[in-house]
């Protein structure tokens, strides 16, 4: 990801000289962003196996506290970051969107793992949402199945870079009339209604699952079933090689 870095207009050399005298020169922007990026409070919820990696990241070996994001809050009201760790089933999706809506600004989302990005191995399933980005905006997509704790830390660092690039005057959550809430989908007769929110996500023109990998889509009616009454096919027994006769 490429972000425009917040550059200080103060000369670096002058800064260094002042630092020797014990004077720190900085901007409000940098101080503000430094504070925000160093105390991201994630929300404490996990949906599937990615949550195990998230827990491992929070434990002593990987220690997410080094990045100031160790305070997992059990309430959306107190958290800045939602780590969607795991498969989002259609039954769970409305709750995830609702939790996002309940978070206070500024809020960020990391989708952790292939499932929450696009459905993962369950993409053709009837019950799994093809990515939570259909309903809410995502800041960092973190692929892997599941991603290792190092990967989650890397994703967090990318998010820190993004936070660093934001400016206090232009940030959307200080603008008037800012309301970042997305409608919570309903349960329909065949799946969620709507299937996606076109304001947030739209299907791509090019479907690489079709043209690149030779149409591996398996969903739809099935036409074959095994015949139980037929005798079991016995696997051919490997014959030992005959000794060669001269």
């Amino acid at each position, binding site marked *: 990801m490429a972000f425009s870095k917040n550059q200080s207009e103060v000369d670096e050399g002058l800064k260094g000289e002042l630092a020797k005298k014990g004077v720190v020169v900085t901007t409000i922007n940098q101080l503000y962003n430094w504070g925000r990026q160093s105390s991201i409070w994630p929300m404490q919820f996990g949906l599937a196996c990615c949550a195990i990696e998230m827990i491992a990241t929070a434990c002593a070996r990987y220690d997410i506290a080094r990045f100031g994001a160790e305070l997992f809050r059990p309430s959306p009201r107190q958290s800045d970051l939602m780590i969607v760790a795991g498969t989002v089933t259609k039954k769970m999706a409305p709750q995830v969107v609702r939790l996002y809506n309940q978070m206070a600004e500024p809020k960020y989302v990391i989708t952790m793992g292939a499932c929450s990005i696009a459905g993962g191995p369950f993409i053709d399933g009837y019950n799994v949402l093809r990515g939570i980005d259909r309903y809410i905006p995502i800041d960092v997509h973190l692929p892997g199945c599941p991603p290792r704790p190092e990967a989650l830390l890397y994703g967090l660092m990318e998010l820190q870079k993004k936070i660093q690039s934001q400016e206090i005057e232009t940030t959307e959550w200080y603008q008037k009339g800012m309301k970042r809430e997305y409608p919570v989908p309903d349960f329909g007769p065949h*799946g969620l209604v709507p299937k996606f929110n076109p*304001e947030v996500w739209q299907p791509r023109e090019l479907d690489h699952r079709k043209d690149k990998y030779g149409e591996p889509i398996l969903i*739809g009616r099935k036409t074959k079933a095994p015949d139980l009454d037929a005798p079991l096919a016995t696997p051919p027994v490997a014959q030992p090689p005959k000794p060669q006769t001269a």
Partner: protein
Amino acid sequence: MNLQEIQSKIEAALPGIRLKPVRESLLIEDAAMLPKVAAFLKNDPVLALDYLSSVTGADYLKYLESVYHLYSVEKKTGPVVLRVRVTRDSPRIPSLVPIYRGAEFQEREAFDMYGLYFENHPDLRRIFMWEGFEGFPMRKDYEQEDSEILETADIEWLDRHGAKVPEGMRKKAADLKAQGKRAVAEKTGKSIE
């Protein structure tokens, strides 16, 4: 005790029952006889199959099936597998909840996924899918929705919630409605049956 001995034991205890060995299991030809067979297997002092491990549905296109795996915790034997076949038109099977209490949630699951109606079940509702879900998703003729194309219900919902919808999607949904179709994911390409 092997399958043949169990079969002859059941046939001796319940005259008139029709059993057929299918692979490693016993098929009960008349589904209504299932509770009697299960009660016999549970209460028989020699077999003592006191634990119903799983109730599963299966779809073989020509018929639907419900499969039961019975174990004996007391004798440390099992499994004894029972099968019941029903037609797609009337998938009615007597419930085993009065005999094995643990069958309740598993029968609900089989009902949810395969649409097998377990008669005399105390609380036959969907367990995984939500109320109002239509169809039984594990059946082979289940038509899954195409999750890339919006339908009129989605468009109406989005309008109600004040979300902007691109014109192309509106048109596509209207076309589908005019044809009386819904967006269904079709099976394409080479597949594993």
